[in-house]
């Protein structure tokens, strides 16, 4: 509280103090979507606690420092927060001009994964090792550039007032733009990311107002593609097993079945209030694999119980609910499409991640937004939050 008269002079005028300007009716602070921001921060902090609980005993991973992962998770959150601020400061419209560069950069990065620079972590060849203990998962950033790229193409003529809906040619271009990175990611293969991207493309098309034929055509093509992949054995054995075993753990009791089974036991044994942070026997005994990343929700289920795990779902729900509002409130199609793409991304990735720990979705290596440990994912989701905030902040006031 620096300005003592901050609230007394709440009118318009150049003489307003910085603080009162911040909270003025059309100020940045008033326009920011605080529920999304708070939910994202809360999710990141809960994630920090869960990551700490899952890794404090894992000396083989944390180099003897029980706080190693906690610190890194908080650091990632901080960097992500900064990226969000940068995104808001730049504004999504400014970024619109940089989309071709960003798109090209992200495609270049995922191409790098296919070179010897790429690394395989947890069966997914989706990483670039930078050195110094850092690695990058470029497919996380591709999710953003696909959204931005498609939005730019699809919204260009509509926002210019030329057409009410994007025409077939534009849609085709947009699909082509998405298809290039998706195919590359499929080659890695990072199946989880491919699934997310396909859903994102679907969400973007829906929001763009593209003809129903495109929407249903895409769904049909997706289904056909899945059948083709299944029948033509494009996937490796382990990937098919992973898909099948979630429904029937006995299919592969030592492998994927074991993971899903142990995950289910961990969550189920949590009960209403959980065992308390750091007290879960499944977590302490490391029965669930990848518990700080893909299976982080099991820690919440076991140690925080229905109340804690439910809170995570509620917070995710707030983020998505507000994002839907943002998508609806902005009158500019570009913003709507970007917001819808982000919604599709967050919603599907959360559903898939939590669903696989609950045994209702096949196991795929996807992080839980904000909660899972992982730099690339954390940066990407905070940039996405930045985009959402920017759309809200810069929405036309007349709407």
């Amino acid at each position, binding site marked *: 509280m620096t300005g003592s008269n901050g609230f007394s002079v709440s009118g318009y005028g150049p003489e307003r103090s910085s603080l009162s300007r911040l909270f003025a009716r059309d100020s940045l602070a008033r326009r920011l979507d605080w529920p999304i921001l708070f939910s994202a921060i809360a999710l990141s902090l809960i994630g920090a606690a869960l990551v700490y609980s899952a890794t404090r005993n894992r000396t083989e991973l944390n180099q003897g420092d029980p706080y190693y992962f906690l610190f890194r998770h908080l650091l990632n959150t901080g960097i992500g927060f900064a990226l969000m601020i940068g995104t808001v400061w730049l504004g999504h419209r400014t970024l619109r001009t940089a989309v071709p560069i960003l798109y090209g950069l992200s495609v270049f990065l995922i191409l790098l994964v296919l070179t010897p620079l790429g690394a395989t972590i947890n069966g997914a060849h989706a990483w670039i090792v930078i050195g110094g203990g850092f690695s990058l998962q470029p497919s996380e950033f591709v999710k953003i550039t696909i959204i931005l790229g498609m939005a730019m193409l699809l919204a260009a003529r509509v926002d210019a007032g030329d057409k009410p809906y994007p025409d077939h040619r534009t849609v085709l271009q947009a699909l082509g733009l998405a298809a290039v990175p998706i195919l590359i990611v499929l080659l890695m293969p990072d199946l989880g990311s491919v699934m997310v991207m396909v859903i994102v493309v679907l969400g973007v098309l829906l929001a763009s107002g593209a003809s129903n034929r495109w929407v249903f055509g895409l769904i049909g093509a997706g289904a056909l593609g899945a059948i083709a992949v299944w029948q033509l054995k494009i996937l490796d054995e382990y990937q098919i097993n992973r898909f099948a075993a979630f429904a029937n753990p006995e299919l592969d009791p030592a492998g994927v079945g074991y993971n899903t089974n142990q995950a289910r036991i961990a969550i189920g044994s949590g009960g209403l209030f959980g065992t308390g942070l750091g007290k879960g026997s499944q977590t302490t*005994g490391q029965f669930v694999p990848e518990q700080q990343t893909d299976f982080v929700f099991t820690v919440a289920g076991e140690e925080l119980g229905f109340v804690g795990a439910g809170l995570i779902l509620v917070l995710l729900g707030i983020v998505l609910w507000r994002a839907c509002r943002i998508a609806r409130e902005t009158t500019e199609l570009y913003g709507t499409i970007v917001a819808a793409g982000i919604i599709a991304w967050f919603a599907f990735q959360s559903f898939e991640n939590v669903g696989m720990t609950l045994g209702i979705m096949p196991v795929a290596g996807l992080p839980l937004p904000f909660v899972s440990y992982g730099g690339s994912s954390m940066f990407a989701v905070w940039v996405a939050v930045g985009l959402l905030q920017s759309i809200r902040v810069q929405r036309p006031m007349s709407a």
Partner: protein
Amino acid sequence: MTNIPETGRTPRVQIRLVVIQILVLSLLGTLGGRLWYLQIRNGDEYAKEASGNHVQQVVSPAVRGSILDARGVPIADNETRLVVSASRTDLLKMKDDGDAVLTKLARVLGLKAKDVLDKVRLCDSKTPQPCWNGSPYQPIPITDEATAKQALQIRERAEDFPGITAEPMAVRRYAAPGEANTAQVLGYLSPVTDEEITKAKDTASPYLRSDQVGRSGLEREYDKELRGKAGVTRYEVDNLGRVIGQAKSDEAQPGANVVTSIDSRVQRVAEYELNEAMKDARDVFDDNTGENYKADSGAVVVMEAKTGRVVAMASNPSYDPNAWVGGISGKDYTKLTGKGSNYPLLNRAIQGQSAPGSVFKVIPTAAAVNAGYSFNGPYECSSSYSIGGQVFNNFESKGYGPISLGRALEVSCDTVFYRLSHEEWKRDGGTKPKKNAKDWFYKTAHQFGLGKETGIDLPNEVAGRVPDRQWKQDYWKANKDAWCKYGKKGGSYAQQIAYENCLEGNRMRAGDSVNYSIGQGDTLVTPIQMATIYSAISNGGTLYDPTVGKAIISPDGKTVQEIKPKSHGKLPMTRKTRDEIDGALAGVATRGTAAWRFGGWPQDKIPMHAKTGTAEVYGKQTTSWFTTYTKDYSVVMTISQGGTGSGASGPAVRNIYNALYGVSEDGAIDKKKALLYDPQKNLPKIEKDGSIDSPKVEKYPAKKEQASEEGGQQPVNGDDPAATVPDPNAGNNRDTRRRSARPKKRRRTLT
């Protein structure tokens, strides 16, 4: 912002955005519902599964209790061997999975490093032996033959050998004190089967994979008491089996000790004398078959007459029960159970049944008196008795004229009993029995406890057989088809018999009753039944359940549960008849059929009573029976295909009595030399620490020193680290010899 053209929102996009929003919410709702289902609805189930997930049990087996003889000498106890084992859980915590430690250990033990490493790997389908197929949380034994020096090296440098333990462990040992191996009475152990584990899983005393279970004899009968309770420590483990905490720990409780009424010294005498008697019998020529007696098997029972306690019980052929320790080899198993083995595992004292011959005669004597015949008679003892042209001879066709029942017992006159039995048979209606047939001779046999187990505390006792009308009927029903098929009128002897049996095998024929009256025909008894009956005659008529177990003593010596003698009935005779029979049986020993075997016996000091029996078995040589008793003991011996009762078994039984009472050949009694002049009344002395006094067992026979070179008495090895662990059975009978030091010679009594 105003320079951006207002495009308006097309309803299509708005509707689709609402659809997206609904989709998103329903996805989240699905997750919430599933979360509720798992955590709240099925939470308990998963919590249970989780707790089973992370607890592992480590089992420390209980030390099996000892079986002691009446004076406290261990006849089955545990030998301490130094076992070096490695804990996998500890080894896996090391950087190289313990390879360095195991290599060092191999050097100390003088083994190859590879052998040691192979021993601690876990078995799976791809790993050949050696490998460990037990629980990975159980310490894995590397060797059970470590020397004291090696063990000390490992223990003193514990920091050099993390995860390695060198501890004395108990292994079953049948000590055979004074060479009394008592094999069939003790029985043996063998590993528990999967089936038994599954069956006992949810009971109060579940089996462990490593358990040994008593399979016969005392080991089986008192298995529950001897076994004790294994200790279980529950560890919380993580997914790799690394211990992260100890949940619960139950100490192992050693098994109780069973004190028996067996006296190892008497047991040794009984075993030795039985074997000698059989050896001697094989030198005797059998006129009937034209070859020497085969003496293929035999048994002897020494019983306390007033309690039914078994002082000695020997069965021949015998075997070394140590063959079972540590798993029996296939070769040994064939030797013990194969077709050519003559089945040494059988305890013929309770599982061998044969026709009793004349030792049976006390039963028809009592039956006749009960039927109203006078004991004094007189009854004609003719040289033969004929029924409808069929002639039944007296033994050696000798006649004694009119005599009393007592005299008939003394001289074992068959014709007296033929006549009485035949008369009773006729009175009961012959082949067409009256409705209220008295069947005195059969009823009395049942009242003597024949045709039924005596109830001895040893498993698998056989019942014998009283061939009464009911049995004949049942037996005929079961066999008539075979008889009628094989039988042929005027065919061979066997075919004729079958033919007759087919026609009227269900009927009690006159010949059957005559044969039965002298313990022939289809009558079957066991030595233990005879010992019980003669003990009852001695003690005034009480039929005791024979017992081997005398007391169960807890490992700390604090609780002593005595096994009291139990009776299963009284002999069906009056005091007077008992006295008359008693007198007659004394007469057998002094002037009757057994008199020549008891020459010089101090009858005035130790009245001896006896009955001889020579049973004929179709197609085989005669069975020798000898039943005897004094006021304190009864001794019953039988030798299959051994010759006459007094001839084959007489000297052995006399020698057993000589040893019991300290009687020398000239009839002098030396109570100092007597092994057990009076029956052992007291239990062995229990020390304050729970250990039980165990006196020495002298060699028998004393003159044959070289035969007893491996007695049970060796000084305790001073530097044996096993002594650091208190052994409740530590006594001067402890044997600390290594397995490899065991002489190659088998401790068989029959060769």
